[in-house]
């Protein structure tokens, strides 16, 4: 009985998202009175660092092309070999393809998208997740011997508790794949929205795509990723992958700027778990102010450049 976290290398390294899961796995192992082990998928030059975040043993497999069945079989075999009975993923695209399969294969109870460290209650685990577009929190109980969790990004900050770990190459054979990856198209150089710590998002208040320079300048000043409301993406003012909300990407950054966005419920559904929300809108009655931590009422075309300037001044000190 132990905790097994499953993390992946992105562009040759483990990123903060992976270390969040290390810390989450470590804290869960403390709750359960056991150890935390890691399965690292893909080559990562910084793999040994998982030890610093509390992972006792790490197994690594090299780069393998994605196949939900293959990943499921490898993870199930690894968990069985280690005797792991709590398996933890980040709630990312891999988890969305694999966690459900794994739960069936291991006859495990699954809760996806959790946002709290589990509490043990006898042999059962209690975990919280956000439901109904962030309007409620559901506390789930898992009563099966094997449990699978997928954890929302930003649930916990990575915490250093130990030394680098020894990473062993996994000896689990890689099953043959029945699918073939033919192309992978990802944006490079910017943090993808689901992973972003800071997001600058703008809506129809921008009037047109030609005005986006001020948004991009603000974003680049703080190293944020840009996002937009749905009508903006629908009108092709901005690329589809920037669309956040109920029908777009759901995000929960530390800091979310909503600029010229009214704050319709379907928009809020995808962003209201952000830790701090700043709203800039000329309409003091805009519904977004009710969901905001900080607000500025006024014309965004004047305010945004002033804000970028203020941040620049702040960074010089």
């Amino acid at each position, binding site marked *: 009985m132990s905790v097994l976290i499953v993390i992946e290398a992105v562009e040759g390294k483990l990123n903060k998202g992976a270390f969040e899961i290390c810390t989450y796995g470590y804290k869960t192992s403390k709750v359960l009175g056991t150890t935390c082990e890691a399965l690292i998928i893909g080559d990562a030059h910084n793999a040994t660092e998982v030890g610093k975040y509390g992972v006792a043993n790490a197994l690594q497999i090299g780069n393998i092309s994605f196949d939900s069945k293959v990943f499921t079989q490898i993870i199930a075999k690894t968990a069985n070999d280690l005797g792991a009975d709590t398996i933890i993923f980040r709630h990312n*695209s891999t988890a969305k393809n694999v966690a*459900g399969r794994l739960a069936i294969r291991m006859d495990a109870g699954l809760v996806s998208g959790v946002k709290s460290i589990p509490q043990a209650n006898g042999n059962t685990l209690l975990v919280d997740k956000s439901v109904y577009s962030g309007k409620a929190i559901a506390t*789930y109980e898992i009563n099966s011997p094997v449990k699978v969790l997928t954890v929302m990004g930003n649930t916990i900050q990575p915490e250093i508790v130990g030394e680098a770990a020894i990473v062993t190459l996994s000896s689990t054979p890689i099953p043959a794949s029945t699918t073939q990856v033919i*192309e992978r198209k990802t*944006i490079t150089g910017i943090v993808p929205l689901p992973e972003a710590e800071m997001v600058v998002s703008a809506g129809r208040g921008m009037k047109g795509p030609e005005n986006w320079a001020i948004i991009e300048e603000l974003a680049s000043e703080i190293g944020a990723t840009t996002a937009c409301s749905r009508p903006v993406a629908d009108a092709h003012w901005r690329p589809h992958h920037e669309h956040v909300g109920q029908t777009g990407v759901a995000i929960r950054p530390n800091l979310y700027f909503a600029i010229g966005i009214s704050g319709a419920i379907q928009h809020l559904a995808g962003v209201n778990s952000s830790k701090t929300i700043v709203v800039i809108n000329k309409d003091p009655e805009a519904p977004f102010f009710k969901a905001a931590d900080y607000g500025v009422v006024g014309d965004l075309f004047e305010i945004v450049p002033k804000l970028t300037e203020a941040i620049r001044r702040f960074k010089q000190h």
Partner: protein
Amino acid sequence: MKLLVCISKTPDTTSKISFVNNGTQYNEEGISFIMNPYDEWYALVKAIEIKEKNGGTVTVINVGDASNDIVIRKALAIGADDAIRVDGKPTSAEYVAKQIAHIAKQQAYDIIFTGKETIDYNGSEVGPMVAELLDYDYFAFASDLSIDGSKKTVSREIEGGVEITTSTNPIVVSAAKGLAEQRIPNMQGIMMSKRKPLEIVNPIAVAEKVSVKIHTLPEAKKGVKLVDSNDMDELVRLLHEEAKAL
């Protein structure tokens, strides 16, 4: 092609929510229910498009009680050929997946569609569970799907982009934006839907591994702090010192 579309019923996003029975149960009183948008707009329409182009049949399946028939009839009005309702209480993704797989096992569907998630509990769990139970390939959050004989080419959303994969096996896909364009049922569709077959079957027993113990409401925001539009230095200070976000 034999196509199966899994459809669920969810409260409209704009619904006010509350809970009854000590917080264990969603209060359905006065709530307007809709077909889960991803099931309706993308999964169902894509299946209909494939049928229109390649021939075949589109069956919709729902696990739930008779109050779901209205949503099932809407799917038939949009263009599905027939429907199956498993007359059980959808208490968990595993329960739903096992009902669907139990039926699908006897039917050899080529493609099974689900939505990327339900908008109430956001699980993304049913699709991969069905795939594992049937030993099908699985693709979550598909934004494109094309078919050439038995070869299916799927684009699925990944962090910051898409990955394009092919499979010649039967597949389960969960539908995301881009897969198809929403269709509004027309009068003829609505009339025809009343005569299309809706089969009601009994559920199989499934031992539950997860259950919701209680629902609580999130802590209310403290209320917005307004900053003078001429004093952005103050906003930066607050974000740095108070929110610790910069």
